[in-house]
């Protein structure tokens, strides 16, 4: 089992740092490229959401990530320091097939075993996600 705590400034450069940090952990645990891709699709959606919609790229605010990688599963908590987080999540628009945005949550729901949101610290949002990376998906 590998448990890691990470913290990022809410700046655009953190997208690359987060991706590199977490990918390195996943590959070191032996995940295949496809398993890593599916896991990272989920984690980057939640991270980007925290960075953009939660912290609104405020460099003073942090995105906090707790990652637990064990046999067959990744459990992650991704928290922001934003305001009114649960309301924002509950009022987000549905994606149109040919719309520019709104597909992130569909991808998360497709790949994640479970996803739960908690409001923390008076308005911040914590997403708790479990990904079974050994689950078989239809080969295209």
């Amino acid at each position, binding site marked *: 089992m590998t448990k890691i705590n990470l913290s990022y400034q809410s700046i655009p450069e953190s997208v690359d740092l987060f991706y590199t940090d977490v990918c390195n952990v996943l590959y070191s645990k032996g995940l295949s490229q496809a398993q890593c891709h599916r896991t990272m699709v989920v984690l980057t959606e939640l991270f980007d959401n925290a960075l953009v919609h939660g912290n609104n790229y405020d460099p003073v605010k942090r995105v906090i990530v707790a990652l637990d990688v064990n046999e067959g599963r990744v459990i992650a908590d991704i928290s922001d320091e934003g305001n009114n987080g649960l309301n924002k999540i509950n009022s987000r628009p549905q994606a149109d*097939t040919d719309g520019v945005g709104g597909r992130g949550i569909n991808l998360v729901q497709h790949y994640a075993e479970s996803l739960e949101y908690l409001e923390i610290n008076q308005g911040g949002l914590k997403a708790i996600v479990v990904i079974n990376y050994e689950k078989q998906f239809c080969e*295209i």
Partner: protein
Amino acid sequence: MEITMNEKNQVQILGLKGRLDLSSGGGLKEKVKSLMEENNNTIHLNLSQVDFINSSGLGVLVSIMKEIRLQKGRLTLSNLASYVQEIFEITQLSHIFEIYATEEEALSSYQSVSVS
């Protein structure tokens, strides 16, 4: 993201390498925009070296496709890794984009359209 450019039979071919996501999508959008400003509205994207795509990357591709169609142009994609193709299937964008197995197949389709 690294972008290489090439042209064949008036089709602009962009080879993409790296991640297509929140941090890299803007560069691709700018590159396509500059091509369109020079009246290059037939564009092919070879994704053979794209090793990651998420909803932000898909959003950029949809935005590019809409701009090109608005200008009566055409956008094709090819060489998607199986796990990248999977993202297009889940989001049903595989029905919206013209996706070919190889770059050659995509370019042939431009030839057959212009002949007929």
